[in-house]
């Protein structure tokens, strides 16, 4: 049957059927019932829908089993999953006869799969297997996994299918208007993952109309090794007379379908809002269209759940970050042995920032169970990073677990010619569609020269072919060794990389830093060797990306490669450098520099500027009174005029605080007389734990010289009373964010009155209003800037 589909595809475009659910509802299926069990009770209606789609020109009909998995059926209390699928497949087969193809339809479970959800991956695989067994027993010709928004769920269904049958399997994802699935997978990433894992056709369905879907097909076509599917809705849903409708009529839909053909779709049908009339119009419009041929048979590319790297024809070497390896990191070893992953995620982020395009993941260390920990780390990294992973373990069982679980197309690090491991690892690479680093050792031990390296590589290529793995799946390791002990080895690596690039036409990789082991000036040797390897065609390097280039190089490289939108990062970096030089060399008045540092929230440099001011003869008091206080007042004005927003206000206030902490001991006693001496007690009232607003108020008040006693959050009225007594006639600032805790302000104020304590209250917080403050006899402050004004006003009031 696979041959029949392939033969059809080689001749013309294949037409798929249209929407099923709405057709059943229009023919009497009540809302809220289980469609699958209703169809079993009403097979004549389902038969009619199938037959109408065939009469409209559909070459393939989908069984009515979209929700016939254990998760969905259980929600309706429906029984035997396999039996339901078998029965519905038989209805379809009987309805359309032997000449029309029947696709067993597999929809999402409605659950999210580990690592993106709580359903264990193997449970998902087993759930799909149960459904697929039923569909196969019912006589379907092929399988279709559709409307997937989670790539991991699509993988689970595809693995289930591949482990049960060799039949043709199609997979379609639902891509949102943003260009990604709801789970963040873009069409090309999905294609790379699914076609390598064994899908016979890949594409998208639902969410958008045919015209909008074209850009997804356009994105996939140049990289597709399989036919592409498009099953769009009848346009975008629009509100008409208070109802949501799909606005495309059959003629318009058919015109949109023609565009999909031009984009390269090989199988086209309809999803939500389409009818047999839409499919009929579609068929009529594309009946003479030849579907575009598939442009390639293989693709060198890896993917994660949310990103991909195409390795072919790269102009620049792709960096594989090497840091997630516990060998030289005790902290990582400890983390892995405790089953934790936070540090690994942090290292991933740092390497991504430094320019890595892939991440090598090695968890091998004493006390670490690789089979358990490697999938855990993969899960955590798949959530926190979009970089594809390079799975680095010599433990075959751990590798299989990792490959099965990894929600993308991985790169295996590595497969050597060592007999006992080569065959099982090649088998795994083939099964899970992974790329692999071919390590030319083990054939005759460690190769002594270039010819032995070549021999080992050829041995690996031959064996890979036996497992249907072409050279496009391989990344050959150039085998870098320390030139301090093997002076000829660098030369052999260069020759090997050149030979792989020009003769085998496959990708290459080196572990760069080995070359300089045991020598001084390692970075010079490494950088020079990398530059030499690049000239020989090296495609990837395993290294710490932070060591590969200076930050200036990175910024320049990013702007030249178009990776820095509007060159913003480059300009910011250059401006910062220029500013630094300007400050170092300029004759600019240091008072202006200090003032600007406060306005800019420049916490790192303020102390240095003040020291420079002192060295130029400025007194501490002139810096405080003539520069800093006017500057922070201006920040307050900017904030109130919305020229500054909150982080700018806080950064400036922190800069001021740092400056003041440095200067205060240097002020003569009398010079501090101008500063406020009033004590201000601050607290978030009992029951409330929100304190960021209160902390900002504290910072602002301190900057204006008030003595702040911050009692923290969730503070009892009794504790506040004790502090009021201790500090005698202070001002008390109370904060609350919730209506339920705001009432505790009243308790504090009442208790102070009852105890005849002499203090003034200021209150604030998200739910607090000026009227509420008045009702308590308290002052109100909206934010940190106003709080300073209010407290100054209260402090200047008559003595209580």
């Amino acid at each position, binding site marked *: 049957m696979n041959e029949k589909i392939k033969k059809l595809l080689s001749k013309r475009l294949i037409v798929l059927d249209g929407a099923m659910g709405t057709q059943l509802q229009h023919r009497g299926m009540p*809302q809220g019932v289980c469609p699958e069990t209703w169809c079993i009770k009403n097979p004549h209606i389902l038969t009619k829908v199938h037959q109408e789609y065939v009469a409209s020109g559909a070459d393939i009909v989908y069984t009515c089993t979209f929700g016939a998995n254990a998760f969905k059926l259980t929600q309706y209390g429906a029984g035997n999953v396999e039996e339901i699928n078998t029965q519905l497949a038989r209805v379809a087969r009987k309805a359309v006869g032997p000449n029309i193809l029947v696709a067993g339809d597999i*929809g999402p479970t409605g659950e*999210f799969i580990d690592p*993106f959800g709580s359903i264990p991956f193997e449970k998902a695989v087993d759930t799909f297997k149960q459904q697929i067994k039923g569909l196969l027993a019912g006589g379907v010709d092929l399988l279709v996994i559709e409307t997937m928004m989670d790539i991991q769920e699509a993988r689970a269904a595809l693995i289930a299918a591949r482990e049960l049958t060799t039949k043709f399997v199609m997979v379609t994802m639902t891509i949102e208007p943003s260009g990604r699935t709801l789970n*963040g997978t873009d069409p090309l990433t999905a294609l790379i993952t699914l076609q390598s894992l064994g899908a016979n056709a890949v594409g998208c369905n639902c969410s958008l109309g045919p015209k909008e879907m074209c850009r997804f097909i356009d994105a996939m076509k140049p990289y597709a090794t399989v036919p592409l599917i498009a099953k769009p809705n009848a346009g975008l849903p629009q509100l008409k007379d208070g109802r949501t409708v799909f606005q495309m009529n059959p003629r318009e839909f058919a015109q949109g379908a023609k565009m999909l053909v031009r984009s390269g779709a090989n199988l086209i049908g309809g999803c*939500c809002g389409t009818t047999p009339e839409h499919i009929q119009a579609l068929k009529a419009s594309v009946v003479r269209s030849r579907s575009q041929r598939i442009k390639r048979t293989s693709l060198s590319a890896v993917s994660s759940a949310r990103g991909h790297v195409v390795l072919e024809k790269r102009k620049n070497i792709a960096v594989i970050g090497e840091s997630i390896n516990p060998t030289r990191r005790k902290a990582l070893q400890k983390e892995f042995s405790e089953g934790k992953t936070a540090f690994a995620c942090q290292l991933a982020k740092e390497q991504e920032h430094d320019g890595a395009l892939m991440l090598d993941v090695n968890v091998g260390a004493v006390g670490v169970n690789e089979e358990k920990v490697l999938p855990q780390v993969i899960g955590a990294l798949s959530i926190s990073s979009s970089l594809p992973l390079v799975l680095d373990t010599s433990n075959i069982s751990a590798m299989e677990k990792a490959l099965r679980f990894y929600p993308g197309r991985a790169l295996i690090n590595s497969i050597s010619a060592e007999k006992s491991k080569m065959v099982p690892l090649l088998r795994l690479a083939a099964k899970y569609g992974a790329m692999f680093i071919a390590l030319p050792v083990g054939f005759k031990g460690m190769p002594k020269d270039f010819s032995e390296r070549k021999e080992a590589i050829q041995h690996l290529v031959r064996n890979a072919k036996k497992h249907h793995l072409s050279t496009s799946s391989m990344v050959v390791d150039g085998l870098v060794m320390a030139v301090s002990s093997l002076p000829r080895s660098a030369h052999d690596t260069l020759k090997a990389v050149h030979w792989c690039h020009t003769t085998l036409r496959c990708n290459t990789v080196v572990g760069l830093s080995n070359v300089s082991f045991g020598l001084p000036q390692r970075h010079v040797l490494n950088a020079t060797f990398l530059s030499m390897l690049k000239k020989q065609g090296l495609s990837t390097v395993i290294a710490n990306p932070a060591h590969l280039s200076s930050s200036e190089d990175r910024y320049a490289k990013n702007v030249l490669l178009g990776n820095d939108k509007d060159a913003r990062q480059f*300009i910011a970096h250059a401006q910062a450098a220029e500013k630094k030089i300007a400050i170092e060399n300029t004759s600019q008045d240091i008072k202006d520099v200090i003032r600007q540092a406060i306005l800019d929230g420049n916490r790192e440099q303020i102390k240095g500027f003040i020291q420079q001011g002192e060295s130029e003869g400025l007194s501490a008091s002139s810096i405080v009174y003539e520069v800093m206080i006017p500057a922070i007042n201006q920040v307050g004005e900017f904030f109130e005029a919305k020229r500054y*927003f909150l982080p700018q206000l*806080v950064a400036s206030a922190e800069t001021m605080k740092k400056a003041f902490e440095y200067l205060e001991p240097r002020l003569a006693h009398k010079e501090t007389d101008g500063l406020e001496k009033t004590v201000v007690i601050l607290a978030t009232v009992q029951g409330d734990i929100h304190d960021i607003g209160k902390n900002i108020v504290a910072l602002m008040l301190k900057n204006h010289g008030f003595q702040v006693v911050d009692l923290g959050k969730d503070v009892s009225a009794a504790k506040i009373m004790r502090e009021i007594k201790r500090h005698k006639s202070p001002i008390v600032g109370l904060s609350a964010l919730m209506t339920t805790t705001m009432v505790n302000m009243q308790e504090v104020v009442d208790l102070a009155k009852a105890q005849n304590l002499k203090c003034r209250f200021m209150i604030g917080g998200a739910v607090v209003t000026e009227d509420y403050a008045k009702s308590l006899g308290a002052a109100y402050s909206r934010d940190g800037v106003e709080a300073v004004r209010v407290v100054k006003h209260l402090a200047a009031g008559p003595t209580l």
Partner: protein
Amino acid sequence: MKFSTFAAIPILPRASAIFRALGFSKEKTVIKSLQEKELNVYIEEARSHITVKAHALRLNVIDIMDTAVILEGGTTLESQNLAEFLRGSKEVLFMGSTAGQPIMDLIEKKTQEGDLTRAVVYGAAASELADEALSWLMVYFRHQLRREDLGLDYRRFSAGYGDLAIDHQKKFWELLKLEQIGVSITENFLLIPEKSVTAISGIRAIGYERKD
């Protein structure tokens, strides 16, 4: 009753939304590129410490009266505003999400270290992600419901809004089993970790969703 759990909602923080929440005005606020870059780094730092978890629950509507909504299992939500909001719904969708405790611990640490700028930005990023998770859930359920010829209202309603008293937060918390994703509730109906939110929305026949 249909219960769903989401171990990691795949959303990224939107700097523009975080800036807006912190008072950024497109027309008035002036920010230097270096300052903006610094704040974007903080947002990214926050993101790396946040895994947004969520629970959702579909319940049938038994009755909608003038001032109360009665749901499957006997849950009653007393609110005229909510009754008006849900009128015509066949079911309701409860949603709850949390940005988790690690980011709250980090905010506390940064506050203690005197790095309040970071604490402020981290807090805003966590709030935005917890809230954005509910928007993500609504799109997700709209897809799911479409297959059942059902639609989900475009707005959501939370305890503490209008006349839906804040004590309903406890009912939301219990129904959503938020304790299972590390969220507790105080006597004052405050969700802990702080950056946790809940909401309810109406499910209707497709085409009749409320967009206002």
